[in-house]
Every structure is written in structure tokens, then in C-alpha cells.
């Protein structure tokens, strides 16, 4: 089983995009784009870009097709897994379904028709645990939340439901769902961190620390929430940014003050950053570097598989940005700027 996963991850890692590949995709002529995507093993992204697939009845958006690709690869990777590893990677895909839940909730708030909402949902394939048809036909947010609370995500939804009942604020719902999901992910990661050690823990630490710092900055300085509420909305963390550190950071009054109060290593990493998107990009870059390091190491296969999925998703998001940019007729330089992707190197 381990040999299977090891081989699979090694084979898959050949699919990752180097920065020069992305750069080439930005500049490739229109008539050669289809060939490039096929060569990179992404024929499903072709729809609309070549004459052969133009008539295919694939109504999925580019985003949906990219997620379908990630789900396909995850399905292959979890095949030999069981127990905690399988549960973790399966739950890792659940964030797409939580995103579907948010889409459904918003559609109910805006009174959108079920068919329109259904068309925007990401098909989850074998990872799908929700009956989207049934949920989309709920009459209002209350009925939808009640149905969700009786389903597989009850643990996440119940809390969001109660928060929404108290405040009737859509932000409460989204924030509670996000927090609930990542709390669930860290819980599922705990036994794996103990079993797989530092490589896996470093991936989780990068992920959760980044989420917490970016959320903290966003809630505090974009939404102007009070420190206590900001702290409450963060993911329970056992990584570099501990609960005490997060409390201290949330109490500060400016972005600069927060960055200055970070541990020294973090300050070095974030030097020169002046805004929240910059923090996200820099931290994501660091996380990608760490993931690449784990992928190329002799770390446990499960950790390498998780590292691959993190990198693959980052790559496919970049491919999406390039394709969208081209579709909108943006100049190559603008697309490269929008990518905000620095080369990832293993130190």
C-alpha cells in the first residue's frame, strides 16, 4: 500500500508547474493553448479553448473543472489509505462542499431559484455527502440550516445556525462555517501529527498559522471587529501562533504593530509586506516551499501526498488565473502581475 502511494505521489509530482511553465502558458499562442493543456494532463480545462471540445456539453465553470481535477487526484491518492489518513484527506476535500453550503445559504438569502444555485455548486463526485437537490429546494435559510443540521456536517452547521439565529448576520454564518471546518481539520490532523511527525506537522502549521494571521488582520482592520471577537473567530491553534500570541496580536491597533509583534523569524519572512494580500502571498509562498521540501524528502507517504495536494491546488489556481486573464484579453505582463507568484525553491 505504501509503495503504491509513494509511487503515485512521485508520478504526480511530475505534474507540478514550474514558474517558467506558467510563464510559457501566459505567452503561448491561442491555437497552441489546447495542445499545451493536453500535454500538461489537463484536457478537461480545454472546453471553450479548442474547436473539438467547443461543442461538448460541459457546462461546468473553469473553477468547477479545476476542483474536479483536484478531487480526481485526491481520490487516487486516498485509495490505499485507511483510518486517520483517509479521514483527513477526505475531510480536506470537504472544504469544497462547505463552499457549496455557503453558496446555497447565499442563494437562499437572495431568493435565487434553486436551479441557478445548483448550477453554481461544485460537483463533489464520490466525495459528496450532501443532497444538493434537496438542500437547494429548501424554502429559506432557516429550513436550509435545519436540513444541514441533520446531515453529515451537523457539527459545523449547528454552531453556525445558532450564531445566525442570534445575530441574523450573514458574516456570522460564513465565519462560523469556516472556523468550524478548520477546527475539524486540526482535530483530524492531530493523530497524524503524532504518527507522522514533523513533516506533516509543518504542513499543518503553515496552513493554520497563515489562516489565523490573515483572518486576524482582515477581521481586525478590514471589518473593525473588537479584539475579543476576532480572537474568538480564529482557529484553535497549537502551532507557532499560540492562543496567547493570537490574543496579544488581536489586541494591537494597526497592521504594522501586528507585524512588528510577530516572532523574529516571521518578521524576517514578512519584511517589506505592507498589506494583508501581501501577507497572504508571502505566507502562501513559504508554505509552498515547505510543501515542496516535504514532497522531495523521504517523509512519510501520507505527508508527501498532502504536500502534493497543497502544491497542486496552488498550481491549478495559477493556471486558472492565466486562463481567465487570457480569456479577458489581458496583457501578458498584467497576468504575470496578477499571479503574484514568486519562484519556489527548496533551501
Amino acid at each position: 500500500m505504501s509503495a503504491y502511494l509513494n509511487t503515485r505521489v512521485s508520478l504526480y509530482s511530475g505534474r507540478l508547474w514550474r514558474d517558467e511553465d506558467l510563464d510559457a502558458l501566459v505567452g503561448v499562442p491561442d491555437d497552441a493553448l489546447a495542445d499545451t493543456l493536453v500535454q500538461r494532463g489537463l484536457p478537461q480545462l480545454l472546453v471553450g479553448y479548442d474547436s473539438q471540445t467547443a461543442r461538448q456539453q460541459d457546462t461546468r465553470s473553469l473553477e468547477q473543472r479545476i476542483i474536479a481535477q483536484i478531487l480526481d487526484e485526491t481520490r487516487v491518492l486516498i485509495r490505499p489509505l485507511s483510518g486517520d489518513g483517509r479521514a483527513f484527506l477526505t475531510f480536506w476535500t470537504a472544504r469544497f462542499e462547505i463552499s457549496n453550503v455557503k453558496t446555497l445559504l447565499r442563494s437562499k438569502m437572495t431568493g435565487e431559484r434553486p436551479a441557478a444555485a445548483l448550477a453554481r455548486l461544485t460537483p463533489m463526485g464520490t466525495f459528496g455527502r450532501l443532497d444538493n437537490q434537496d438542500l437547494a429546494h429548501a424554502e429559506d435559510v432557516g429550513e436550509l440550516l435545519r436540513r444541514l443540521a441533520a446531515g453529515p456536517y451537523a457539527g459545523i452547521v449547528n454552531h453556525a445556525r445558532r450564531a445566525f439565529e442570534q445575530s441574523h448576520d450573514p458574516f456570522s454564518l460564513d465565519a462560523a462555517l469556516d472556523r468550524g471546518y478548520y477546527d475539524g481539520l486540526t482535530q483530524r490532523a492531530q493523530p497524524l501529527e503524532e504518527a507522522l511527525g514533523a513533516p506533516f506537522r509543518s504542513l499543518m502549521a503553515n496552513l493554520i498559522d497563515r489562516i489565523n494571521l490573515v483572518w486576524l488582520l482582515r477581521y481586525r482592520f478590514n471589518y473593525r471587529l473588537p479584539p475579543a471577537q476576532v480572537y474568538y473567530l480564529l482557529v484553535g491553534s497549537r502551532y507557532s501562533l499560540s492562543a496567547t500570541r493570537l490574543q496579544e496580536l488581536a489586541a494591537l491597533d494597526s497592521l504594522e504593530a501586528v507585524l512588528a509583534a510577530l516572532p523574529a523569524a516571521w518578521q524576517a519572512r514578512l519584511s517589506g509586506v505592507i498589506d494583508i494580500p501581501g501577507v497572504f502571498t508571502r505566507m502562501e509562498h513559504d508554505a509552498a516551499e515547505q510543501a515542496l521540501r516535504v514532497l522531495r524528502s523521504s517523509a512519510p507517504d501520507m505527508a508527501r501526498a498532502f504536500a502534493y495536494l497543497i502544491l497542486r491546488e496552488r498550481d491549478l489556481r495559477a493556471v486558472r488565473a492565466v486562463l481567465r486573464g487570457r480569456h479577458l484579453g489581458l496583457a501578458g505582463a498584467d497576468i504575470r502581475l496578477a499571479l503574484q507568484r514568486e519562484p519556489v525553491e527548496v533551501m
Partner: protein
Amino acid sequence: MLRAEPLLKMQLLMLASEAQDAALALARFGVFNPAPCALDTLTESPAVAYRDAWLEAETRLAKLLEQCGDTGPLEIPVEAEAPTLADLEELNGWLKDVWTACLACHESEAQITDEGSHLDALEETLAKLERLNVDLSHLLRADSLLGVSIGSLPVTGLKRVTEALAMTGHLVSRFDQVGEQVFAVIAGPRTRQDEVRGLLAQAGWRELPVPDELRTHPQAARAWLKQERTQLDTQSGATCQTRDGLREQFGPRLREARLRLALARPLAEASLAGMCGKGGLTALSGWIPKRQLKALRAALDTRFHGRYWLELREPTPGEVADVPSLVRYPGWLKPFVPLVKSYGVPRYGEFDPALPFALTYLLLFGAMFGDVGHGAVILLLSAALARRLGRMAWVGIAAGAASIVFGFFYGSIFGFEDIIAPLWLSPLHDPVRVLTIAVGFGVGFIVFTLLANAWNKAVAGHVGEALFDSTGLAGLVFYLGAVGVLASLTGAADVARPAALLAGLGIVVVAAFKWYEAKAGLGERILVTAIETLETAINLFSNTLSFMRVAAFSLNHVALALAVFTLANGLEAAAHGFTLVLGNIVIIVLEGGIVAIQALRLMYYEGFSRFFSGDGREFVPLRLERG
């Protein structure tokens, strides 16, 4: 019965305003399987709005019917017409209003239940607080510097809330837990209460209303609680009139809604398959049986008086995989069909294995479980449970009958071998003959599957595979030759030389075909050809031997009966009888079950896998109501 009916692809073009009636007419016709429309010139999807409205209305109706119970069987008048989109939208709107009223009632009922449990909690809380020497009325004073509130929150969020509140100088003191809810007192500087309001809402904090008289006048608190409870009871009685009166108030209209939605279903379902149109024109595509063509034209003429255009054609070779299979089975064969379909649906044009399956399955079951008594028990039990088992009871009855017939052949009744004389042979006394017959049957069965596969391949246009592949006629020639050689070696026949020639010819043709098919380098080609050719021989040999289990199980049946008799004979009169009865029950349940599964296994793996792809599409006609 052995093949799917020949179908025609039809395109029905009509006025968009009559699309719902056309779909209804096709649903009444009963043998139209919708398919995606493939007319390049008609680029619009005309029935999407109709389908969406129908789906919404259908869902709302289903939820309402769940609330007020079934409205009885639905009779659809012959002359009834399908609703238009406007009618459907109106109906959908009405269903939405009724369901929204129901939901409001649901919400208030849930709220009342919630309030009730809160009052329970409060009562408990008051009892606990009464025992504390704390003047709560003083604590809860609105003009105090200390802001205090009593309430509940989910237990999972308590730690986080406590940590977050500590950042604003607030304390959380938990004093009770009911289920997943923790009851707590939160106290902190009143000046900072605005800071925690959002946090508490986010955490799902629910404040408990505490009467001022609590500490100083316990009696007043009790009276207040009682008054609140009475108020709640009154509310719960009054709020749900809409839902409780749903059946009386809306019963006839809900029934009407059910009828109209049943009439609208055909167009909505056809639209799901994929309709196309442009402007005032709509096209419905699908498959119909060739022999129903005249009847279809007559039905359309009666309804539309020539206001339609019907285009028909035979399926092209390229679309055979998409053509559904419509096979008509006689009533007695229908119970066996689910057993075939659990393996797969035959492709259009493919040989349908239901009939040989039914006959062979019964033959194998009877041969492996031949006993007059046991067969009779299975037959009678299946007949007795016919209502519960439905059509599957017939499989049990037929299997029991087959068992009885073989019981007479073997001379076995409840394991006794000396009550009736065998009409054919006794497995116990002539095991070698039984084994030979089983292998002989296996040879016949495999010959049949190879012929069926050659036929299926030829029909699908794969003539090369039908003639030269290991599962085609070349494989059959090799197999028959090999069987002849083995039969000559055992002395059962004297055809060794011609049989060897036949086998050699067959295997050479198979090897040549494998060589031709393998698109690889020389080394790999040699390897693939050698291994696949060898595999052909091994597979056919092992599959034939697999049928020895038929003989083995018929012997096993006798052996089990002997074991029961040996045990029973060692016991006294009552215990003897009891052991015999119990032993026979064990044989029927245990061995009967195993034999049923083994017969199925032989059919699936030695039979179906050889000639039946099972990846066809079932013919699903438009209907007025789904079962």
C-alpha cells in the same frame, strides 16, 4: 425475449406552445425513451424554465404531502391536458405560500419547544441559586458597575468564549449543563459590554430572562415561571393551525396540484434528458420500438392533427452504445430479470441472457440441492411468503420445484436415500458418474457462452474478435479440440488425432490474432502473445473444472444428511426426532443458501463474464408517474 427490440431514433418537432402536450402524449404512449437532442440548428433549451418550475413545485408538494399524509391513489383522466408554464408557475407560487406558512409554524413550534426547555433550565437554575447566599437582584441591577448576564451556550465553545472574554476583563462561571448546553454567568465591566456583544452572538449565547423578584420573593419567581409556561402552552395550541388544518383546508387543492404536476412531469423529464428548440419550435428526441411506429403516428395525429414533424432513422453504428435496450419478458421470466440486471444491462443488439440464465440457474440449483423434502419446504415457504417476497417468491418456488424433480432423480427425501428409488442415479453410490456429468454440463455451458460471445461481437461489428479471438469461434475450435483430446485420453471417445488437429488449429489462430492485436515492440509482442494464448488454455480448462462443484455439492448434500443421521442415531427417541428436524433445518438454511449463491456465482463468473458486457442502457420510458 433473447434480444432487445429494434428501436428507431425519432425527432419530434412541434410548436413550443404544445411541447407539454406532446410530452404528455408520448408518456401516455408509454414506450418513448427520451434522449439528448442533437439538432445543430436548434440551439435553445426551451423547456428549462418549465422543468425548473416543475422541480420546485414537485419538491414543495412532496414536503406538504409528508406533513398532511398521502392524498390517496391518483387517477389521471384520459382527456386531461398538461399545464402550461404560466399555470405551473402559479401552482408553484401557491405551493410556496402554503409551505412557507407551514414553515413559519414549524419555526414557532421549534421556538416554543426551545423556550420550554429554557424554562425548565431556568427553574432548575433558580432552585440552585436559591440555595446560594447571593443577592441576584442586586447583581443584576442595571445601574451597577458590574454587567452580569445569565444564559447558555454550546459546551464546545465554552473554552474559547472564556479565553476571548478574558481579553475584555469578563469572567465566565459555569454552573450547570443540560445536554450540549452549558449554563453560565458572565460578569464584567459594564463599560465594555458593547465589545462583547458581537462575540456573544457569534458564540450562540442565549440569555436567560431572570425576574428581579428572584432572590427577595421566591414565590413570585415561581408564579412568574408558571405564568410563562401557561403562555407557552396557549401559543403552541394556536400557532399551528395552518399545518394541523392542512388536510382539511387544502386537501382537494393539494390533490389537484398532484394531478397537474403528474401531467407536467413528462415535459420536465424530457427536458432533463435534453430538449432543444428555437423561436416557436421545439424538438423532442428519443427512442421508440420500431413496431410501435404506426401506433405512435396515430396517437400524434389524433392529438395534433398534423401540427408536427416526425423524423425517424435507424441507430447508427457509432451510437449503438447509447441506444437503450428494451426487452419484453414473459411473466414467468420477469422474477429472474433482476438477478441478471444486478450483473448489468445487455447492450442494444446483444444477446439477452435472462432466459438461459433462468433455465440454467434452476438446473444447477436442482442438481446441487436435489431432495424432494427440502425442495418441497422451499417451495411451500416461498409460496407462503409470496406477499412479502413479491416476484422473488416465484424464483423460490421454481428453485424448490427443481429441487423436488432432482430429488426424485436422486431418490432422496429429507436425506433418506432408501424411501424412494432413484429415477436416475444416486450421487452417493455413483460419484464418478456425477462428476463426469457435471464436467460434461460445464463443457456444454462454455460452448454456449463462446457461441453467444461470438454472436455479440459480430452484432457489435467486431467481426475479427468474433472469429479469431480466444473468446470467439477460434477459441471454441480450440476448446472443442482440447475436450476431444482429453475425452480420447480417458477412453470416452476415440477422436484424438482430429481433435488434436482442431485444437492446434484453434490455438494457432488465437495466437496469430493476439499477435496482430498487440501493438507493441517485438519483445513485448512475443510476451503478450505467449501469455495471453496460454491464459486462454488455462482459463477454459479451469472454468470447465469449476463445474465439478455441481457434483461436489450434490455429494455434499448427501454427506450432510448422513452426518445428521449419525448424530440422531446416537440419541434417544425424542432427541433423535429433534436432531433430525434441526439437522434438516440446518441443511435447508445453510446448504440451501450456499447452493443458491454458488449457482449464481457459476452463472456470473463462468457464464456472463464470457459473453455479456452488461454496460447497456436500460429503456426508461416517459411515464405519467414514477413508481
